[in-house]
Structure formats: C-alpha cells, structure tokens
C-alpha cells in the first residue's frame, strides 16, 4: 500500500457500531481503499481498523462487577489482540507492509474502564515497536466524549477522518502514535 501499487490497497474494519464503522468505511473509500467485507488472510491486507466497543456506562470502581471487568473489558482487549494477529498475518501474506489503526472507546467517565483505553494504547506502542521493521505501522485514535472546548461533541466523521489519515501513506513515518480527537478536552 505504501508503494502505491497498481491495485488499490485493501482494508478491513473489525468491530464498532454501524454508524462509526460506516463513517470509517466511507473515509477509507475516499482515500481509494477497497474495504473488504471481512478479514480474510487469503486475500491479503494493507489496512486493519479495529474499533473497540464501549464496555460500560458510567460506574464507580466500587460498583464495577469483577465479572464485567474480566468479561467485557478483558474480552474487548482480547478481541483487539486477535484482530491484530489476524490482520498482521494477512499483511504478511501480501508482504507490502501495512497500517493498523486501533480506535479506542471515547474517554468519558467510565472510571473502571479507562483501563481498556490505556491497554489499547500500550498494545499499540508494543505492536508498533515489534512490527516496525516489517513496515507495518500501528497507531491509535482516541476520541473524546461529551462537551469540549471547541463547543461540540466528537462526531463519527471526525474519528473517521483521523483513522483514514493514520491508515494512509500520508502517515508513512507515523507509528506508535496517539491521535487524539477530542476538541481540546485533554489539553484543558
């Protein structure tokens, strides 16, 4: 994909609600990416987007059930890990490097589940270090939630535009990076 080969780059989107996944699909298509219906190692792959699900409503640590923590949070991290392994296998089959983009759930007031976001962040960095020599880039998009200094909430199109950038050859030297899309919330 990075060499602008004659055939269009192939991307797969794993996870995500239909609205966000749809926005990402549209943004990738605008970049000339052919978006596959499913991740199929035999077809080869250039771009993998994994969109983590929100795992809980706002809850305190005290009210968080251990079963939910291991089942839902652990399950989502595992899903990210499995998607990464499958995606990388498919990229290796094609042998042209690739780009992985994780999309974290919005940072909000899910105190006990912030661990998912940070787990995905560190998975991103570790994978970036390991896969860099193969030309496979790994980055994470971190959407915000709720009110922002810019005065509006983060829209699916905002997240999708950052995903499309991170997946594109325009981010050729970017790996292991956080791409925050939160209208200035974290800066405040």
């Amino acid at each position, binding site marked *: 994909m990075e060499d602008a080969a004659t055939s269009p780059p192939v991307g797969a989107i794993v996870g995500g609600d239909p609205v966000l996944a749809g926005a990402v699909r549209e943004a990738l298509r605008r970049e000339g990416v052919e978006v596959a219906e499913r991740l199929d190692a035999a077809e080869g792959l250039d771009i993998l987007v994994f969109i983590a699900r929100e795992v809980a409503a706002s809850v305190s640590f005290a009210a968080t059930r251990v079963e939910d923590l291991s089942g839902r949070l652990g399950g989502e991290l595992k899903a990210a890990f499995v998607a990464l392994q499958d995606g990388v296998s498919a990229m290796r089959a094609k042998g042209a490097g690739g780009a992985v983009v994780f999309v974290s759930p919005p940072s909000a007031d899910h105190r006990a589940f912030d661990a998912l976001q940070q787990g995905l962040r560190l998975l991103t960095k570790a994978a970036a270090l390991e896969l*860099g020599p193969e030309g496979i880039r790994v980055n994470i998009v971190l959407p915000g939630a709720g009110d*922002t200094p810019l005065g509006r909430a*983060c829209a699916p199109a905002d997240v999708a535009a950052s995903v499309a950038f991170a997946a594109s050859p*325009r981010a050729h*030297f970017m790996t292991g990076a*956080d791409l925050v899309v939160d*209208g*200035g919330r974290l800066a405040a």
Partner: protein
Amino acid sequence: MTGRLQDRVVIVTGATKGIGRETAKQLAREGAKVACTGRDREGGASVVAEIAAEDGRAIFVPHDVAREADWRNVIVRAETELGGVYGVVNNAGAFLVKPLAETSEAEFQDMFEINVQGAFLGVKLGFEAIARSGAPGAIVNVSSLMGQVGFPGATAYCATKGAVTGLTKTAAIEGAARTPPVRVNSLHPGVIWTPMITGQFGDDQALADAFAADTPLKIIGLPQYMADAILFLLGDESAHVTGIELTVDGGRGAD
C-alpha cells in the same frame, strides 16, 4: 482540482530549508497561498520560485521570528498580497547539542528566543490575523520528540521544545474560545534528515543509516513526512483536533 487548503493563506516560518521548505511546497500543492518566511533571502527566493514553477502561489518575507516588528511586517504583507490569514506554521527553530554544563546563558537565551518567543509571537499575532479574516483558523507549532522526552546533551533544545508543548495546549484552549475559533496543535518530529541535523552531526550517509537502524520503522525521517502531518493538522480533516501532541517519529518514542 480543489486542494485541501484551496485559496487559504498560510504563513510558514523557517520555510527556506528543511521541514519548512517542504511544508510550504506541499501546502501550495494543496491550493494554499503561502507566505514563506525566514532569514535566508536566497533560500526564500528559490522556494518561491519552485512553488511558482508548480503553478502554486507564494511570497517570501524576510523574518527573524524573535522580533515582533518582523512578525507584524510578515502579517501585513501576507494580508495585503495574499489575503486574510487562515493558518500559521511555527516551524522556524534552532538546534543545539551541547552538555548542560557547557551551555552558556547566551546560548540558552538564543534557543529560547527562536524556539519559544518565536512560536509565542506567531500564536499571539496569528490569533489577531485570523480574527481579522473573519473565519476559523489553525496553527501548528513544530515542537520535537525532544519536547516530550529527554535527550542527553540537549538541555536547552529540550527545554525550549517542551515549552512549545505547553504553549500549544494553553493556546488551544484560548483559541477554542475565540470567535471565530482557532485550533492549535503541536507536531513532534523524530530525527528528520534536514540541515538542522546535518549541521550538527554532519551530512554523512553512514550516519543517516545509523539513525534509520535506530528507528523502529528502519527508515530515516524525511521533511515530506512532516509536511503531510502539518497538512493534516491544518486542514478540515482535523476539524475536531486541537491541543494535541502529534508524534511522527518512526516509532522512536513508542519505546
């Protein structure tokens, strides 16, 4: 074809070489009208000529970024010759590799004036110019990976680039509250093969290879990659992105 910054006026400081030069050319390819600034008049004339040769639009304005009078002149010329200002790229920077104990007060002061005072004036006067344009705007401050992590032998540089990181976050919050709003983000390049690096370490292929080997992606950073990231931070794709630190370093900082 309509570019990502079609007809928008952007000021790029330090546009005579390195990242700034490549950024000015890339923005012009995306339809921007670029005010290229710097101290090197010859370099300024040649980048404007190269942009014109690609049918782009640009002017050169001599500029010492630490001087407010120079900034005011840059903005007047951009507004009168190109139109209302949309964006500023505070790219001009000084680099110094010297152990803390050997760095003089004067050397520290020089670094501070160019790297911090220059960006401060660019944001402050950029805010005013963007307000006069009547439309939202965007500012990109070029910090460094060395504005996020320490690097032995570069105290003054790291301190000034760290200051740019903090300046950016506060400016982003103030910029978001302005009418019309201004987004402000910082870019944190890793090792990029430019005159800034070769001027300190020498222009030597073995060294470039060593930097590449020390980078997870195993390639040397090129100004073009930074131009692409700056274009992203300036354009509408990042409409909801402000106050962020975007690290583009081949994975060096992920370790």
